[in-house]
Structure formats: structure tokens, C-alpha cells
């Protein structure tokens, strides 16, 4: 007969109670073990869900970057050929204007029209050069640079304009950032394009926070630059177009719409990435990740 069974005919009440207590304790212990297992399993499940969500988010981000890169690569390929074909007839148009200016220098009304045409030729030239710059894949001069120095050199160019426009500049640049292999001219162009956009967005004043830190992105050490403005933010429907060539929200004649596409192209050629975070009414942050060469990790400034 089972000693642990609940009822024994000739047992005294005390024994019966002890037996019951024993069974209750055993059940409690079992319950505790099971409860612990349930908690552990739930925690594991939560962690798995979180990991899965993070993986999905990373996948979405990578897909979105890939779509942008493919789209821009296609446009770039087309642009490179088209640009050359535009510059030759533009050159002839420009020469005709210059020759007419020389011949009709006395006719002020005529000269005024020709000067306007000449200015438009310069505008087309600028757009085409930007497009060529965007399309160019190989024209690079990589040197060892300190990102802080490049940031400072761009800031010194625009500092006075910022004061006039009531924009406060906050710098948060880590000391001891590693050197980067980069084309300094191209990188300064990227910094200037993004800062100019922020400046335009804060035409009533604001704060631009500029940071440079060492981070890890997809297990690769990168120098991460952030440009955070307190402007009105970017409309949701514009967010996936802002790196497209010729996309601009500025009034006609105020922008070529090439600044961010050129920036994207340059950063990609450096093996880096550029992303944007923005909500209407809550400002915009541009994030640039520039990979550090393995041999440079210990080579601090």
C-alpha cells in the first residue's frame, strides 16, 4: 500500500495530519519549481521576441539602405553619361553669349539680357557639376584625417552666419577619436551640405548640436557624427526622398536639390552610411557612420 496515500483506515488523526502536511509541502515545492520554470521560460520568450524585433528592425534598415543605394547607383550611372553630353552644348551656348557681350557692349538693355542668360548658364553648370560629383565613383584622394579638424574648418566658415541667424552651435566632439582614411575635401562638402540644410531649417533661430563619437555599428568600429537641429522636422512623406537627386522642398531657385544626394554618395564611397531621424515639429538628426580602418583603431589622435 502507498504510504503517501491520503487515507489509511487505522491511522491516528495526527499521523493523518502529518501525512497531509507532507503532501502539501511537496505540492508547494513542485509549484515553486514550476513557477520558477514558467518565469524563466517567459523571460526567455521575451528575450527571443526582443531579439527577433531587433533583427527585423536591422533587416528593415538594411533593406531600406539597399533600396536607396541601388536607386542612387542607377541614377548615378545615367547621370555620368548625360552630364558630359550637356556640358558640350552648354559650352557653345556660353561662348555665343560671351561673343555677343563683346560685340554689343554698348547696348545696355541687350547686355542686361545676356548677363541674365550667362547667370543661368552658370546655374546649369553648377547643377551638372554637382550631378557629376554625385555620379563619380573613383575620383578620390584618401588621406589620414582627424574628423574634429575637418568639423572645425567647416564651422569656422559658417560661424558668423549662425550668429546673424540666431543659431546656437553646440559641439560635443570626443577627444582621442581615431584617425580616418578619407578625402578631406569631399568630407567637408558633406558636413557643409548637412549644416546648410540645418541652417535653412532654423531660419527663425535654434540650436544645432554637433557630435562625434566612437561607436560600434554592425560589429564594426565607426566614428559617428550627429547633426541635430531644432527645426520643424521633415514631413513623413518626404523622408524616403530626401537623398534623391533634385529633391528639394525649398522654393524654386533657392536650392538645386543635390546637397543630400551628393552627401549620401560621398559617404557611401567612404564605406560609411548616412541616415536621418526626423518627426514633424521635433527637429531632424542626420547620423553619419564612417568606418575606422582596422590598423587605425589604436592610432588615436
Amino acid at each position, binding site marked *: 500500500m502507498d504510504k503517501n496515500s491520503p487515507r489509511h483506515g487505522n491511522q491516528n488523526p495526527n499521523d493523518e495530519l502529518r501525512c497531509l502536511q507532507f503532501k502539501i509541502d511537496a505540492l508547494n515545492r513542485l509549484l515553486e519549481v514550476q513557477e520558477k520554470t514558467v518565469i524563466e521560460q517567459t523571460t526567455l520568450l521575451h528575450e527571443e521576441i526582443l531579439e527577433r524585433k531587433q533583427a527585423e528592425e536591422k533587416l528593415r534598415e538594411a533593406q531600406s539602405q539597399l533600396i536607396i543605394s541601388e536607386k542612387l547607383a542607377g541614377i548615378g550611372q545615367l547621370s555620368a553619361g548625360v552630364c*558630359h553630353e550637356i556640358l558640350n552644348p*552648354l559650352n*557653345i551656348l556660353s*561662348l555665343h553669349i560671351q561673343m555677343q557681350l563683346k560685340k554689343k557692349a554698348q547696348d545696355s538693355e541687350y547686355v542686361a539680357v545676356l548677363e541674365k542668360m550667362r547667370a543661368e548658364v552658370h546655374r546649369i553648370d553648377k547643377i551638372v557639376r554637382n550631378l557629376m560629383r554625385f555620379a563619380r565613383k573613383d575620383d578620390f584622394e584618401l588621406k589620414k584625417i582627424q574628423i574634429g579638424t575637418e568639423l572645425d574648418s567647416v564651422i569656422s566658415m559658417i560661424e558668423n552666419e549662425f550668429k546673424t541667424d540666431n543659431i546656437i552651435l553646440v559641439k560635443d566632439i570626443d577627444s582621442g577619436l581615431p584617425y580616418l582614411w578619407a578625402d578631406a575635401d569631399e568630407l567637408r562638402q558633406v558636413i557643409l551640405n548637412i549644416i546648410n540644410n540645418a541652417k535653412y531649417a532654423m531660419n527663425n533661430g535654434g540650436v544645432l548640436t554637433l557630435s562625434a563619437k566612437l561607436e560600434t555599428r554592425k560589429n564594426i568600429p565607426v566614428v559617428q557624427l550627429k547633426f541635430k537641429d531644432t527645426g520643424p522636422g521633415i514631413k513623413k512623406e518626404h523622408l524616403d526622398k530626401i537623398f534623391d537627386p533634385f529633391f528639394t522642398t525649398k522654393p524654386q531657385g533657392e536650392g538645386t536639390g543635390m546637397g543630400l544626394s551628393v552627401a549620401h554618395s560621398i559617404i557611401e564611397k567612404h564605406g560609411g552610411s548616412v541616415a536621418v531621424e526626423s518627426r514633424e515639429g521635433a527637429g531632424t538628426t542626420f547620423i553619419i557612420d564612417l568606418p575606422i580602418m582596422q590598423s587605425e583603431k589604436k592610432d588615436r589622435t
Partner: protein
Amino acid sequence: MDDEVEFCSLTEEFLRDQYTVKVAYNGKEALRQIQEFKPDCLLLDLRMPELNGKEVLKFLQTYHSSVKTLVITASGNLETARECLEMGALDYILKPIELNELSDKIRSALER
């Protein structure tokens, strides 16, 4: 020399008051004229039929290294510019060109 006829004609019109100007629309014709007229200065496009600008530069480097050559091109490629300068070109001018600037560059090339 340039395969754009209108460009050649306008540049010639601008320069003919100051210089004797000969025009060639392709590389082979350019070589023939260089042999015949032995110019002091050459304005050279890079993309041309028959012989391209770099091939003409090579020829000049070997047989007529005293000709002052200015490259005029629509290509803003740094590497190409560097190559041309290494092959003896004195300047690398981007289209669309400014005629007064071109005039200054020819003058300073001839003075070298």
C-alpha cells in the same frame, strides 16, 4: 582641336585678332596640322574621333615637346587631369570656358 565644330568656330573667332588659328576636328587631322604648321600653342579636347586627346599628348611628348598644350574638356575627373598634366599639358580647363580666362591662360602658357 575639338570635334565640336561650333566650339572651334567661336573660339577661332575670338582668338583670330591676336593669333593665327588653325582648326582640326579629329586627332589625325590635328597631327597632320601640327607637323605642317608647328604651332606654338595647342588647345586640345580629350574625347575625339580617330585619335583621342591623350594619344595626341603622347605624340606631342615624343615629337613636339615644345608645343604648349592646354587641355579643354567637359570631364572634371581628377585622375584624368593629373594624367594630362603628367603628359606635358600646361593646364586643364573645364567647359563651359570663359573666353577672357582662356586668353589669359594662352598668354601665360606662351610666356613660359
